[in-house]
């Protein structure tokens, strides 16, 4: 057993009250919004006892486990409580899960992003369960007057084997709640896990399939008004004036006014990104009335001036230049070409790359690009707010309540403790909901109309408000000697307004002579984190390039990568290499075995890709056929090393979704601009992948090990762009360097 100190945010284990009074939260609790069938219904206890911030135990042994992190489909609402339940040693069928309220006193890192929820939550969640289990054992030991060491637990029962006595958790919960929080707790051995590592159904499954009100847009409050905003139609424009005479007279309209999202001189934080900080707000009795009134507004816009802004990136100040002007995609492409030809910043250099390239037998150079992308969360941006004198209550979908609480506090002039944020289930996030301008907007609108308000973005508002995945371009060069050994590697990448170069990632460390360079171009089009930021472009480009290099070197693409990884393992170049070569090789070997690599079927074209990001290793083999002139993805075989897999079927679902999402974006995803205007505004023009375009089969395999778990939300997404590009090449003889690979042209020539 592992003995660990319970250092993790000890405040979460401090008990304020022992009797929780059965208090369920909001309308979002399992009990309030679910109608279980009689055989599924758990008899609810008469009393609940708070053991710590993560769990309470009912007098009948039912356990409520709080899932601390915001849920947007990654299913931490099931997997995080599974970890607590494992260490608590309780039967999963007696567990009820609640979304924890946002509370930075009780929980740390209530943030969804970077695939870090499970990785960073792992220890704390285990401790929450293990310390509760310890308290239950101590309470039982006291009741029986036996040493605590003689007690054991099994599925919600404490036993004293020597005397044959046992007590259910519910029977001693009230006593356990009085036991001091242990200084140290014992954690289970991985081999003894009975819940972690087994597939458990989504705890919200039934509520989802029956249409229960789980989402931000479903939030309702007595007297609540509906509100929408009008924002500039183009980047590079701001509000000049508004004539709301016609709109005001329309039925159901309560008020129309302008709001400024940030105070004059406010130093923006990293997630305060906002190209349109002055907006027209319309509040009324129903969505439809507000939508119509919005159309009746007469708004004049004017050009923005060139400006600079100081961004406070978690204490680190950065100056950002925001150019004036209305940008065009065609200009972006030309500017990127120009920058790519000039000098870049060089964050990493190993050996003597210049000489190696000069003396090489072969030099291969290829350039890749990808457009801006909109997140297109299925549930558009929205938030509920009720701001009253001295207090603000918000509810809705956010990935970053901790961060937005600070922004709201600064804007509303309220101390943090006067701001309450309830976490609703999110209809997708993909990074977009880490940004919270709309939360501030909702609060300002509520303040002005002096009523509870739900701010709602139409699809068009959502798609044209910015915070896009940036557009990128990257050039790779490889030098081969006469024996086709890779002797030098050069990556030079940029983008608008950020680049996607990771200087210390593979194949850095595997090549003697290596150079990474980066550049970027300022823009007034705002960008934000998008599922596996930067990796979502770099992986596909790099893996396409390595495929081409392997081909020119006359090597099998898996063998070629394994050779490089062997070099990085046995005799690494440089010190900061950001990957474990053995685990990287592990997923390649697993995908080789599981995909039946080398046993090609006629008419099926295979592409390979492998990538490491967000602490998880992924390799994929994608099988593609051309049917009626169209590329059809027949199968994707995916091998993953994310350490211990908490909930295998849920992790598989994540990987499947990431693969579908990646193929969709690689084939069709693009946002373009004309005179600053986003050219796509809804799903009729912004093409998203649909069922008939998804792979016919996806097989997901996990490396079995006992390494602490890492995340699944992002890592399976980036490599699939490369696997698809490489399979398309096999199928068509043509390399695809620029995304989207198909765009609106649906047939391959």
């Amino acid at each position, binding site marked *: 057993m592992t003995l660990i100190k319970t250092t993790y945010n000890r405040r979460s284990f401090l008990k304020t009250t022992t009797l929780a009074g059965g208090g369920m939260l909001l309308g979002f609790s399992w009990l309030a919004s679910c109608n279980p069938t009689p055989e599924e219904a758990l008899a609810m206890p008469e009393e609940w006892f708070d053991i710590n911030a993560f769990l309470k135990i009912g007098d009948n042994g039912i356990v409520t486990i709080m899932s601390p992190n915001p849920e947007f489909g990654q299913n931490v609402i099931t997997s995080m409580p599974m970890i607590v339940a494992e260490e608590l040693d309780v039967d999963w069928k007696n567990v009820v899960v609640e979304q924890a309220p946002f509370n930075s006193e009780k929980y740390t890192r209530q943030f969804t992003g970077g695939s870090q929820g499970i990785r960073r939550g792992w220890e704390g969640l285990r401790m929450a369960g293990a310390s509760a289990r310890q308290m239950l054992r101590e309470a039982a030991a006291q009741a029986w007057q036996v040493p605590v060491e003689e007690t054991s637990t099994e599925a919600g029962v404490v036993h004293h084997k020597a005397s044959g006595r046992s007590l259910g958790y519910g029977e001693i919960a009230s006593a356990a709640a009085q036991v001091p929080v242990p200084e140290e707790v014992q954690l289970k051995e991985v081999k003894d896990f009975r819940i972690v590592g087994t597939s458990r159904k989504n705890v919200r499954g039934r509520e989802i399939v029956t249409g229960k*009100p789980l989402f931000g847009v479903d939030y309702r409050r007595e007297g609540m008004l509906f509100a929408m905003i009008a924002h500039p139609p183009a980047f590079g424009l701001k509000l000049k004036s508004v004539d709301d005479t016609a709109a005001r007279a329309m039925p159901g309209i309560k008020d129309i006014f302008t709001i400024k999202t940030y105070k004059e001189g406010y130093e923006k934080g990293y997630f305060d990104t906002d190209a349109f900080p002055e907006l027209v707000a319309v509040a009324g009795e129903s969505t*439809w009335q507000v939508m*119509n009134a919005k159309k009746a507004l007469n708004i004049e816009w004017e050009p923005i001036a060139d400006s600079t802004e100081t961004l406070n990136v978690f204490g680190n100040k950065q100056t950002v230049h925001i150019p004036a002007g209305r940008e065009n995609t065609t200009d972006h492409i030309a500017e990127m070409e120009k920058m790519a030809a000039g000098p870049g910043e060089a964050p990493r250099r190993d050996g003597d790359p210049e000489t190696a390239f000069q003396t090489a037998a072969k030099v291969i150079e290829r350039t890749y690009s990808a457009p801006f992308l909109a997140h297109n969360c299925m549930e558009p941006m929205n938030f509920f707010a009720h701001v009253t004198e001295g207090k603000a209550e918000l509810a809705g979908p956010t990935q970053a309540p901790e961060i937005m609480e600070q922004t709201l506090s600064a804007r509303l002039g309220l101390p943090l403790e006067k701001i309450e944020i309830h976490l609703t289930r999110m209809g997708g996030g993909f990074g977009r909901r880490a940004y919270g301008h709309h939360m501030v907007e909702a609060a300002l609108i509520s303040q002005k109309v002096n009523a509870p308000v739900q701010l709602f973005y139409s699809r068009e508002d959502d798609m044209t408000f910015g915070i896009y995945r940036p557009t990128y371009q990257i050039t790779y060069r490889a030098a081969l000697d006469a024996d086709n050994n890779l002797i030098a590697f050069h990556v030079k990448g940029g983008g608008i307004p950020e680049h996607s170069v990771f200087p210390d990632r593979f194949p850095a460390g595997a090549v003697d002579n290596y150079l990474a360079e980066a550049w970027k171009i300022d823009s007034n089009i705002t960008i934000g984190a998008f599922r596996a930021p930067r990796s979502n472009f770099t992986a596909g480009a790099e893996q396409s390039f390595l495929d081409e290099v392997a081909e020119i070197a006359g090597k099998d693409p898996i063998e070629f990568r394994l050779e490089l990884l062997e070099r990085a393992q046995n005799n690494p170049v440089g010190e900061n290499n950001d990957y474990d070569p053995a685990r990287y090789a592990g997923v390649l070997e697993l995908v080789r075995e599981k995909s039946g690599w080398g046993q090609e079927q006629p008419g099926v074209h295979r592409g390979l890709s492998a990538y490491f990001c967000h602490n998880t290793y992924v390799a994929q083999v994608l099988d593609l056929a051309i049917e009626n002139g169209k590329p059809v993805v027949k199968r994707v075989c995916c091998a993953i090393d994310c350490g211990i897999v908490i909930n295998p079927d849920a992790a598989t679902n994540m990987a499947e979704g990431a693969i579908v999402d990646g193929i969709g974006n690689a084939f069709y995803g693009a946002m373009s601009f004309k005179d600053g205007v986003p050219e796509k505004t809804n799903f009729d023009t912004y093409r998203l992948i649909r069922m008939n375009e998804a792979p*016919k089969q996806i097989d997901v395999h996990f490396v079995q090990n006992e390494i602490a778990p890492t995340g699944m939300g992002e890592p399976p997404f980036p490599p699939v762009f490369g696997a698809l590009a490489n399979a398309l090449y096999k199928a068509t003889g043509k390399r695809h360097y620029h995304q989207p690979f198909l765009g609106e042209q649906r047939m391959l020539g």
Partner: protein
Amino acid sequence: MRHAQILKNCSVIFFNSNIMANFTLNINGKKQQVDVDPNTPLLWVLRDHLNLVGTKYGCGIAACGACTIHLQGVAVRSCMLPVSQVGNQAVTTIEGLSENGGHPVQQAWLEHDVPQCGYCQAGQIMNAAAFLKANPSPSDEDIESAMSGNICRCGTYLRIKAAIKSAAAG
């Protein structure tokens, strides 16, 4: 496509949106009265006036299927269906598809643990349920063509397809 047909059968009249009118709707087997602008799409009547929020908005232009409901048992996109066109036709929403999620399609969804974020799933389920009624033993191609109007941004398509096959197999 079916949606288009239904709308064609109705004589579409556009009302001045300043006029409110009273409608008696037949929703999930219950008569419901609303006093709204006749052009209001059924979606917003359900969500804002009747608090039936299971039916979701995704695009408002009949391009995603999130708002799918049944009109006389046929899958229809409620985001572009004016309330004035509903009349006394039977409307079924996700809330009325079954008691407690007992419909075979909902059961299959649970069995395959389909949802990720879940936002699109009410629309997917409503579309699948109407489709299976019309075509109880569909091929993969039938499923794809029937379901390709419904976007799942999370990419749960393979599970949706598997669940529909399970539901069809009974």
